[in-house]
């Protein structure tokens, strides 16, 4: 769970601000100066590149992702503070967040793959998801989400 969260936090950071990833840097002691410097520039590059490639579609997805992460964190904090009495309800909620999150990321990967190919290179073979059109990936996404939420509702009773 903890691991999950740290990933989630990172993702959140990626999506919005660039503040959090500096935390890992504090764990390294010796070659701090160079490593830290490179880290900084790496983050900066990623950050810039991210905004350059942002399309309205991906923006929507990323906002949704951020929302899910926040929701997950909120639930987690709730459990830490108040206790996990209806454990299955918490699990249902939390896992639905995680599940929706990974589904969204998958969708984003698939769609993004398509647009990148269209814009930059245009080679058909180098595409990673060559069997999946954006329409199909969206359909898959809906299908998987429906099943996910059906199970969650069943789980919560």
């Amino acid at each position: 769970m903890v691991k999950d969260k740290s990933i989630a936090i990172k993702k959140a950071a990626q999506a919005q601000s660039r503040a959090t990833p500096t935390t890992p840097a504090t764990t390294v002691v010796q070659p701090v100066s160079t490593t830290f410097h490179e880290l900084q520039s790496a983050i900066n590059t990623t950050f810039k590149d991210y905004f350059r490639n942002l399309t309205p579609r991906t923006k929507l997805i990323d906002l949704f992702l951020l929302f899910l992460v926040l929701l997950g964190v909120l639930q987690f904090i709730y459990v830490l503070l108040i206790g996990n009495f209806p454990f299955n309800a918490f699990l249902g909620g939390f896992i639905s967040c995680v599940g929706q999150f990974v589904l969204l990321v998958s969708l984003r990967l698939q769609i993004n793959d398509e647009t990148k190919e269209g814009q930059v290179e245009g080679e058909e073979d180098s595409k990673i998801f060559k069997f999946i059109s954006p329409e199909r990936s969206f359909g898959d996404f809906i299908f998987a989400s429906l099943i996910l939420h059906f199970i969650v509702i069943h789980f919560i009773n």
Partner: protein
Amino acid sequence: MSNVNQLTIYGVDIQLIRTLLKIIIFISIAGAAISSRLFSVIRFEAIIHEFDPWFNFRATKYLVTHSYYEFLNWFDDRTWYPLGRVTGGTLYPGLMVTSGAIWHILKNYFKLPVDIRNICVLLAPAFSGLTAIFTYFLTKEMKDSSAGLLAAIFMGIAPGYISRSVAGSYDNEAIAITLLMATFYFWIKSMKIGSVFYATITALCYFYMVSAWGGYVFITNLIPLHVFVLLLMGRYNPKLYTAYTTWYALGTLASMQIPFVGFLPIRSNDHMAALGVFGLLQLVAFGDYVKSKVPNKQFKSFLIVSVVFVFGSGIAALFGLTAMGWIAPWTGRFYSLWDTNYAKIHIPIIASVSEHQPTAWPAFFFDTSMLIWLFPAGIYLCFQDLKDEHVFVIIYSVLCSYFAGVMVRLMLTLTPVICVSGAIALSKLFDVYLNIKDAFHGDNISISKVISKLTVLLSFGFYLFYFVLHCTWVTSNAYSSPSVVLASRNPDGSQNLIDDYREAYYWLRMNTPEDAKVMAWWDYGYQIGGMADRTTLVDNNTWNNTHIATVGKAMASPENVSYEILKKHDVDYVLVIFGGLLGYSGDDINKFLWMVRIAEGIWPDEIKERDFFTDRGEYKMDKDASETMKNSLMYKLCYWRFSELFGGRDGVDRVRNQQIPINAVPELNVVEEAFTSENWIVRIYKVKDLDNVGRDLYDATKFENKKSGKRNRIVKRPKIDLRE
């Protein structure tokens, strides 16, 4: 093998012919798979086999007669008396639900009111046909459809799988292997094309699998391992991310819907590997994203920092949570796979089951015949073109060979991969040698080429033919006896059926009060529940060690001690299985040592294994038998009046080849013989009530015997001879 250029034969499209042929082949494979599993039905009749299937059958009947919710909340008061068992919450409902659903569909939509028993008997063969088809698809992903067809037919008739899926062996494994293959197929498919849709299907199959068999843990660990190895090989791609995360999120959530599994997937260490890989994959995906944006050197430092951080926190979290008791440590059964001595020391119950013994080499050959040496060749070929899906086959085969070596039972999970890789090897061979085009290259026909091809083809055709013979022989000889009904051969070669079990269970059903409690060793618990419909103390669901040990103690103790236990548990009848007359080796005397061992585990002061051996350390029943042995209830129940059968000579125990002396007839005081089956396999004793006039039962028996003199019951000698 017509020319490739020609697209139509007699005006029919070649693709169409191909599909048609494929369908015909499928139908015949399924037919072969099903019919080879019907030996037992033809030889005996359509009954349920063995032990566990009887419980499944009983549960299915309950499901069919009650509603689904009642089934899930079923509290069974007829087993584990006086504890009872929360059956609905402690079983894997997949099997029962499947056959219940088939029954309902047949009844309501096709208006075919089939007996639920027939559905249960024939479920396993029907599913084996499906398994063959899924094996085809799986192998097709590995190589091509010709390998797939070979794998399907191997899977259809390989004895290793037949052993658990003959008609009548209505067990969880019957449908679980089908689901295993389906899950793996969809996993490979989704991993290959990165489709969320297929990953969802994988998760659904996984859910079905979880509902059907405890062996689902195998999938839970194998798929993450596959992903992990791929990551180590530096083969990460977004497709992997899509497939795995979707499967994991949906599959885990779905698996928690099964009451018996509950919150295990987030609590037990068995499932932590999957969670760990899930987390790792998120990181790798993020890293991959960053990598695509920044120069290499910067990425390296980024990598180091995050790896150190994540590993530290992850390991700390795992240890912390385990220490705080949030995550259960590995379960015993799972642990016994790694530390092979673990079970022997800590869980004698698990060690006592014969299917948990290690496997000697003949079993492998017996179950797979020549596939066993095609298997390494297939793995080698997988290494040759090491694609992602081949990595899967390799991991699967190495792991499963280990597991199958440790436990006979897990032969079942090894068989599919043997079939797959054997088929890969063989179809590669056929690819090379069936291609006769180059022999007819140009005008002159190269005779030597033709001969060399023919040699290989004919010899392998012969081996395949032998393979079919082998499988048929094994199936008909080893795996087709229901073990409820035994078969023997008369001297003239005709078959003789020994039906003692059912005779005795039927007697119980008809002649004992409805609420009678029967004590027997746990092996027979399900059968008594299913066939005799009487309450049992212990059964094959070995969840309560102490209770089983109590029964073991009652059997191993002298009469007076046993009587207290019997009375405390309201036992009315005691049932023992005795094969000494017939030479049936699976009887209670041979299992007796396990009873002693299990009882010793709880009461080391009262029961001592050593006391049951003679001074020379032998396990004997004859005149040398130790006093403790002679006084034990089990010994008395088995050999009571045994030597009377032999007309004044010493009785001969045919299982152990030992003489039972006529002058040392055990005396019984606290129980009396109620029923002995035709061939003496089942003996049932009634526990005497406390004496009316308050005498000790010993005195009472003595008094009775004096009064009536020696009771002269004519003991009927069975007609049939020793079972071969």
